[in-house]
């Protein structure tokens, strides 16, 4: 037989998992939230999400071309950033702000740091924080008035009861496009768990910490504490952004520390900060701590150190 055999070192087979496949799963998991946002806030919501996605992919493509690098848009990570950014904005956000936010997320936060895998902080979260700060009161102004009642006033106690838990669970409240419908977000969460894209550690410890601390801040009221975790951007952040591989710890222990820290910061900002919502800041701050958490929570190597067997 006349053939050229390939020489290579083992392993000779691969699991078939790929970055693009993982990102595709994240996009699929975000579909319910996008659909819910469109139903709740109308077609403009879909326009915002689509525009952010198109801008993020476009800016990354442009950056690849200008810097003469391999095209990386095929890995779908820019699309994920775009969808997440869109879902983090209110439906009536000015469209030019979507473009600027996308530019910031992709170029400043991601590409300038070296592209996928090299960014220190989550691009979508950082762009959301940037837009909140740069465009002044954009985030709260643009929200329907209801949202102030929820995420602004809840720490004062009592006003969470303005909404029934069912309304909160279905997303019948003001807020960013993708953050209100807990049901849709949980469907996405289950999908990501089943597909083994993420583990339970970050979302459960993050949301759990907020729940437990809110329970005490809300005067030991279970319903109020539950309302607190269904309010603001907690579920969207905890499920989809705090679990970003690049900017969260790798090991289970690290993920638990990350979730605990993010939950604590969220509650502190919600109750004591000047901003009504603390999820974005909490994730951003924990992103910055991730290298340290990773260093502290390395796996112990089998047969190295410790007591002799």
């Amino acid at each position, binding site marked *: 037989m006349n053939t050229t*055999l*390939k020489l290579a070192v*083992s392993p000779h*087979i691969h699991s078939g998992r790929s970055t693009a496949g993982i990102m595709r799963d994240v996009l699929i998991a975000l579909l319910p939230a996008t659909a819910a946002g469109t139903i709740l806030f109308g077609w403009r919501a879909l326009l915002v999400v689509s525009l952010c996605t198109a801008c993020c992919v476009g800016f990354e493509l442009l950056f690849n071309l200008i810097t003469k690098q391999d095209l990386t848009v095929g*890995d779908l990570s820019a699309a994920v950033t775009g969808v997440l950014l869109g879902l983090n904005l209110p439906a009536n956000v000015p469209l030019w702000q979507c473009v600027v936010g996308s530019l910031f997320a992709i170029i400043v936060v991601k590409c300038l740091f070296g592209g996928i895998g090299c960014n220190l902080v989550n691009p979508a979260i950082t762009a959301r924080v940037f837009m909140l700060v740069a465009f002044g009161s954009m985030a709260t102004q643009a929200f329907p008035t209801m949202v102030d009642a929820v995420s602004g006033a809840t720490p004062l106690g009592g006003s969470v009861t303005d909404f029934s838990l069912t309304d909160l669970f279905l997303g019948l409240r003001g807020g960013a496009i993708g953050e209100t419908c807990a049901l849709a977000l949980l469907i996405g969460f289950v999908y990501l768990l089943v597909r083994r894209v993420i583990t339970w550690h970050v979302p459960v410890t993050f949301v759990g910490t907020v729940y437990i601390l809110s329970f005490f801040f809300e005067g030991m009221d279970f319903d109020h504490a539950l309302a607190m975790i269904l309010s603001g951007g907690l579920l969207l952040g905890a499920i989809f952004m705090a679990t970003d591989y690049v900017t969260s710890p790798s090991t289970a222990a690290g993920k638990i520390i990350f979730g605990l820290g993010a939950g604590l910061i969220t509650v502190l900002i919600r109750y004591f900060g000047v901003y009504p919502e603390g999820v974005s800041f909490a994730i951003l701050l924990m992103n910055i701590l991730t290298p340290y958490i990773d260093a502290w929570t390395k*796996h112990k*190597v089998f047969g190295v150190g410790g007591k002799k*067997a």
Partner: protein
Amino acid sequence: MAFSLRGVHVPHRKNTLDLPVVRMDPPGVVTIPMSMHIGAPARPVVQAGDLVYVGTKIGEAEAPVSSPIYSSVSGKVLKVRDFLLAGGGTTSAVVIESDGEMTPDAAICPPTVDSRDSFIAAVRASGIVGLGGAGFPAHVKLNVDPSRIEYLIINGAECEPYVTSDTVTMTDRREDMAVALEALKTHLGIKSIIIGIESNKPKAIQSMKQLMTETAQGCTAQVKVLPPMYPQGGEKVLIYHTTGKVVPAGKLPIDVGCIVLNCTTIAAIGAYLKTGMPLVEKCVTVDGGAVKNPQNVIVPIGTAISDVFTFCGGLTEDPAKVIYGGPMMGITLPDMDGPILKNTNAILALTVKEAKLPKTTACIRCGSCTNTCPFGLAPAEIMKAYDRRDAERLTELSVTACMECGCCSFVCPANRPLVQTNRMAKIFLREEKAKEDAKK
């Protein structure tokens, strides 16, 4: 125990598991290398023109860590030539033209074994090496102070995809294994025997349970059924999962009172004690998408791989890779002229589709590598440290503990060459250490 050793679920592809084992017709020519084991190569003791029989010694083991080599066919020695080993390096090889008769050497008779020393001498004379793939001479492993041996662990895990030769050995050669275990008990005072098998091999488990019941006279003997998770058959993984003992990095199983032998090695020892016929043939799994009739074949050692494929109906398409061993840790071959070795347990001809690996892209820090590494290493970190040749950091990351099972590369969604880099990093650290030692 604080450790839960991770691993990966590899596709099993044990296509040959329930097929009958067939014996191959004598090949026209065999090429028998003098180095089919870890340690010093054997020295050829025949010349062109010599007549040899099945079991005639053709290579003498002279160093303590070495193994003698025997002719696998009867016929005439054509030449003794240089031979390039698949793993790099050269040795000599004896090329024998078979007369097709397979006449056994008249001098073959069962060895006289009546003491520990004569038992170990017999194992050395049998030419048996670690048949699971490592090829470490079995007599060296057994030649330890018997008081240090707490457990004899038999490796029947066979966790590599495709490969089933150990499994069929366990189902078909229980009697040979029983003979070897009796001798091990008598001469090495083995008190506890555990055989580890993955749960996806029920027939082998059944057979070994019977063997363990028969063997339990005067010692404890048990089958430990393990979850089918790669790399269950890794030596340190197996020891941990059968006894709970942790072999420290850089130490040997005997340092925690264990001797690990592959089930096929055990069967080969038994066969030698019974008949005196040294190791001259090997049961080999022939598989891969390009092979027409995948099956387990008993092949004379030294038979060209191309002859074995021909015996299995030939290849249905041009393979992309031909591999000695399994796809997770096997070695690719440059051509199909290479021979079946003592420690060959499988030859695979993978199609282009089977051997296709995705494109390597940037690390997304998903943590899959460190979360699947059985030993808890951090391959992505090791790669960063190796890229800047940071010996201190590599030492800190314990890269030398890596057993090169390949789980990290297998799961990496960016298909980064992680285990490959670990190997390079280990070599790099060895070189750095040598440089430092030279300075002193």
